[in-house]
């Protein structure tokens, strides 16, 4: 079960290196040659949202902006398109962080979905303003797939923090 503020599980603090590595790994997943396949989740956006919710003091809008610029270059889109979307996404996640963490994973995912959709709409607004074509409604499928990944991704990213300090069979929590 994904620990929330409501649960009694105490986690080890998140390590900077771990956060950084997970973001780099997500970036690498986004750089794979997906082509125009519909419904491929935005991995960077998802991991970024996760850390913005979990560690709003460590990951925030500035990291979102920089990641967005890198994605813009890698995908050859208009500079600032992903940057703007990610900054909006990070703002929503950081602001809602304290609220989201009281919910169960389903409630968390339902909070994340509108944030991801808002980011996609922002991205589309920039794309269309720069003379782009409407990509079709399947474009928004990506947010729903990302939302479905919220729980498995959460478990995966929190795994290092589940690890106890010393192995103790009679550890109370």
């Amino acid at each position, binding site marked *: 079960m994904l620990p929330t503020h409501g649960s009694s599980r105490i986690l080890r603090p998140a390590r900077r290196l771990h956060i950084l590595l997970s973001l780099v790994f997500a970036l690498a997943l986004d*750089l*794979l040659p997906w082509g125009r396949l519909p419904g*491929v989740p935005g991995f960077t956006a998802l991991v970024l949202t996760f850390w913005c919710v979990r560690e709003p003091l460590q990951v925030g809008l500035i990291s979102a902006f920089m990641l967005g610029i890198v994605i813009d270059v890698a995908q050859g889109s208009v500079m600032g398109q992903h940057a*703007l979307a990610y900054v909006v996404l990070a*703002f929503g996640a950081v602001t809602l962080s304290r609220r989201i963490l009281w919910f169960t994973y389903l409630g968390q995912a339902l909070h994340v979905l509108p944030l991801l959709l808002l980011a996609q709409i922002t991205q589309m607004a920039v794309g269309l*303003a720069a*003379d782009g074509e409407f*990509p079709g409604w399947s474009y928004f499928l990506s947010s729903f797939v990302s939302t479905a990944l919220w729980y498995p991704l959460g478990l995966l990213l929190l795994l290092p923090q589940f690890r106890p300090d010393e192995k103790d069979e009679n550890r109370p929590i």
Partner: protein
Amino acid sequence: MPLAGHSPPPFFRRGPTPLAKLLVLGSMAIAMAMVDARLHYLDWLRYGIATITQPVQSALSAPFSGLQAMLGYFAKVDTLRAEQARLRQRDIERAARVADADRLEAENLRLRTLLEMRTRMRQPARVAEIVASTRDPFTRRVLLDVGGNQGIESGEPVIDELGVVGQVTRVYPQHGEARLVTDRDQGVPVQVVRTGLRAVVFGAGGGQMELRFLAANVDVQAGDTLVTSGLDGLYPPGLPVARVLKVDRDADPVFARIRCQPIAAVEHHRHVLVLSGRAAATSGRPALAEEAIEAPSRTARKGRSH
């Protein structure tokens, strides 16, 4: 978080509030988008970051292209046999015309020298493979496996055996990015074969193209073939570009709405040919050609505003 009035003093220093950061970074991103889309001032930053991301990207895509090659290796014998039969038939059909072409070329050369015309240079070309289409869903672009190190330059036409596929718009050291003719920003100067009418055809999205700004009574029919006019000095003249699908003269009182279908297998092929722009320039008007090579997107936009 109160938007107005006083907020309680924070226990921990967090720097500027998220709202302040949103406003600053958001306006920065919007400014960057505007500058990049209209003025192209940010290319240095793009190429700087791309020198790091491009090698990573090609390393990541290597297993995928390997997998594709492996699957292709196991293609069914039937498919290969059918393809061979088809190719042989086409070969026979073309043999007569090829023999004729040699004779015609010799005759053409003689006539040209008679007319004291400048002989048109045979255009150097380079075979390129389409690695992937870019993930940006708002534009139609593909990544080529040749780049600046292989002598590719921005503005060079990309064709396949059927017709024009697109134009190289960005050149990285190892990769090139080509804009397909179906992209909304891509314009190709064309001529209607039947009437000789000159126009510019633009991408219309959804894999189609359109002829814009032609009067409602213009002599264009469904089924007409559009070939490059060569007026820009960039595309060699006579390459097939598109076929007219539908002419709608009632939708707009001033202009006809003319939908076209690209002739080249624009979004299907893996192997394309990149024509060298310099040779094309010798056949057209030199000054215009140089300008076009320097700023392909600018000329495309210029054509559009007419």
